């Protein structure tokens, strides 16, 4: 009898895995422990794919874990009086459980290509809205000045306070001065490593105004945790007014950046 109880106990422990696993994912959104708000136009694709994979893996997870529980429950040596089934496998089953996952995975692989291409491959044909240069431990920003061109003497230089217009494509030119960093905008579903020696284009379109975090997501040294910026999305008119104000401040408070600085940023 003691043996039977142990079978019940361990069976229930393994049953707790799918039960509590599903419960954790079901409860988390109610406590705001879930995907942060998405204000981009492409983010919905990514989130939909996340939910699709969550549903798919969720079904497989529950099915396999419940099967495991059921076998533990049913084939406990303490209760079953039949001898163990003498079987070395099943060709049919092997074929079935090879073909079905293969087809599913292949479908998943092809299905997602478009979303990836949208975010990382179909670059809009435009000049950079802003250049973001990462360095230990800040985000240096450079907007084209009145001439509309980056890399000239009248560029606007700022740190950590990124402003961008909403409802239009923006193109960020991402660079690093020193080590690897990663430009992570959780609310825009954007992440891209900044690599010294490379200029990497990053593009997106925000559809809602607001102020959000810029997070460094690639280890960049002791101060990695505090490499924090803020991004403010606002309508075009307000964005331009802000640019104008910052530009005036720069003209008033500091001489144009010296040659050494712009060399480093190139």
């Amino acid at each position, binding site marked *: 009898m003691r043996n039977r109880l142990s079978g019940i106990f361990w069976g229930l*422990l393994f049953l707790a*895995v799918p039960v509590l696993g599903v419960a954790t994912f079901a409860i988390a959104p109610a406590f705001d422990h879930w995907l942060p708000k998405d204000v981009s136009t492409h983010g919905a694709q990514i989130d939909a794919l996340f939910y699709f994979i969550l549903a798919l893996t969720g079904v*497989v997870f529950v099915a396999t874990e419940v099967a495991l529980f059921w076998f533990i429950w049913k084939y*406990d040596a303490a209760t079953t009086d039949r001898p163990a089934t003498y*079987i070395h*496998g099943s060709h049919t089953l092997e074929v079935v459980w090879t073909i079905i996952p293969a087809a599913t995975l292949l479908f998943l692989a092809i299905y997602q290509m478009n979303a990836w291409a949208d975010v*990382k491959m179909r670059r809009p044909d435009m000049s950079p809205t802003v250049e973001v240069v990462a360095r230990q431990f800040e985000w240096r920003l450079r907007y084209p000045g009145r001439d509309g061109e980056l890399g000239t003497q009248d560029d606007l230089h700022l740190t950590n306070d990124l402003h961008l217009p909403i409802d239009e494509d923006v193109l960020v030119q991402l660079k690093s001065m020193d*080590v690897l960093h990663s430009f992570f905008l959780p609310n825009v579903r954007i992440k891209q490593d900044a690599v010294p*020696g490379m200029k990497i284009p990053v593009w997106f379109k925000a559809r809602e105004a607001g102020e959000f975090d810029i997070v460094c997501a690639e*280890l960049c040294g002791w101060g990695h945790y505090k490499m924090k910026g803020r991004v403010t999305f606002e309508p075009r008119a307000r964005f331009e007014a802000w640019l104008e104000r910052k530009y005036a401040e720069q003209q008033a408070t500091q001489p144009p950046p010296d040659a050494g600085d712009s060399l480093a940023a190139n």
Partner: protein
Amino acid sequence: MTPPTAAAVDHGTVTVSAPAHAPKGGIGHFLSTYVFSKDHKVIGLQFLFSTLVWFLIGGLLALAVRWQIAWPWSDVPVLGKLFAQEGGQMAPEFYTMLFTMHASVMIFLVIIPILAGAFGNYLIPLMIGADDMAFPTLNMLSYWFMWPAFILFGASFFVEGGAASGGWTSYPPLSTNVASSPSGGWGQTLWLLGLTMVGVSSMLGSVNYMTTIILMRAPGMTMFRLPMTIWGMFITAVLQAFALPVLTAAGFMQLADRMLGTGFFSPEGLVVNNAVPGAGGGQPLLWQHLFWFYSHPAVYIMILPAMGMVSDILTTFARKPLFGYRPMVYSVAGIAGLGFIVWGHHMFMSGMNPALGITFMVSTMMIALPSAVKTFNWLGTIWGGRIQFTTSMLFALAFVSMFIIGGLSGIFMAATPVDIFIHDTYFIVAHFHYVLFAGTAMGVWAAIYFWFPKMFGRTMNEFWGKVHFFLTFIFMNGTFFTMHILGAVGFPRRLADAYHYETFHHLQPLNAFMTWCAIGMVASQIIFAANFFWSMFYGPVAGRNPWNANTLEWTAPSPPGHGNFDFQPVVYRGPYEYSVPGCEKDHLMQTDPPNAAAAAAALASH
């Protein structure tokens, strides 16, 4: 019955017939028997004890990491005094060092050497019916090359600036530029040298395992009669042999960048912390390609042997043949083959050409397939069995249950668009802890409880084993399952304090919960340690075959003497003949002669 292979027969004639110990004689005898031993079993146990000690160190490092994440900048109890920070709280550079060394210790000094070094060494000759490894001296050296690594890693904690803090992936330019971090000096250099030593050790082991398995099988032991443990070890050895040289070369390139002023990994015009380093003209991404070309196959090096051992343990305690032996072998081979062409999935966000990312995404999706096939076959194995709930079996069942989670969460990261959001968040931390801790470590514990009687001649205490299992299982899931939720919020890994971000400021209570679970998980290991050492001396004496298992090691004495077998094992069948209809007992050992009368005679003689 297939006739024995020629090679195996040739070898079989030289197997010693009785345990033959070297003549006794003072300190020289002690050194050659227990320290510089060439006996694969002693070397295996040396690996086991060393890696278990490092397992403890790695676990304590993890606790310190968890402390900072749960209660940033608060005084660290007990350990705080040891690292003498101001008032016992940790500095951010200390935190980066902690997670770097936690991962480095766990991967290079625990998981890889405990699987291949401890279990590979101990089990390969015994399970194939050989008297020792093909190259005993090389085998001894493979253990002793771990010591420079132990010393280099250990010493690096005490040099100026502390141990390496560039992450276990050691990405340049952070890792190559001395000016880029407080520990960019000797800590990182010692780390690279230590890594090289681990590589030498693994390579010596790998050559030995391949040779031994190919050439020294007992008569009748064909490749397709090998237990899955040996298949796991064999494929792992092949992976090591082909992938390691790349890491070793890359390590020396990074050393050259640091010490000789070369610029393999640094572009021109770099300014790090206001210092202009070396020659430039290199590419930071080159390191990532070389590093992951080894370290992705290394992920399989860290799980295939555990998969093999779990397969053997499941069949033994389900009293059933392994479901789909050949598909299992082919999927291990498939994982190994595909394992060489998926390294780029670590680099989806790295700035690598996104078109190349698509190629790696497809190969990564495909590698989920052999893993799925293995899982279904494990379920098939326990279906219709007669399950005995030993501690070893519980850990093996936990391996299957947890590997399902680790395998499925991998699909999220493999999907490149989703990876944009969850890359370098706690989602990936959850994923690899489910594979490596909830997977491999469960497999290792299953194996320790399973083969302990063979190693020490006594069985471990089952009651305390089950208490150890229960607590570990609960706390482990409390620690790691919740990491998926952090990942869904986008909580980044490797931040000393993330709560100043608006997006993450509300996650502290969940992190505190996880840290409490982690503390419970480490504390539960006290039970394991006590059981382990107590049972070594006072556990119930085990016979040759306490679990009624089929494979060759169970025909040898427990523990086996020098030379392993006191008779010449001859193999008549595969390793999984449990519950054969019409057979008197429920297991037919690989050595039991085919006809029934002879089987009875053999039984009597054991």
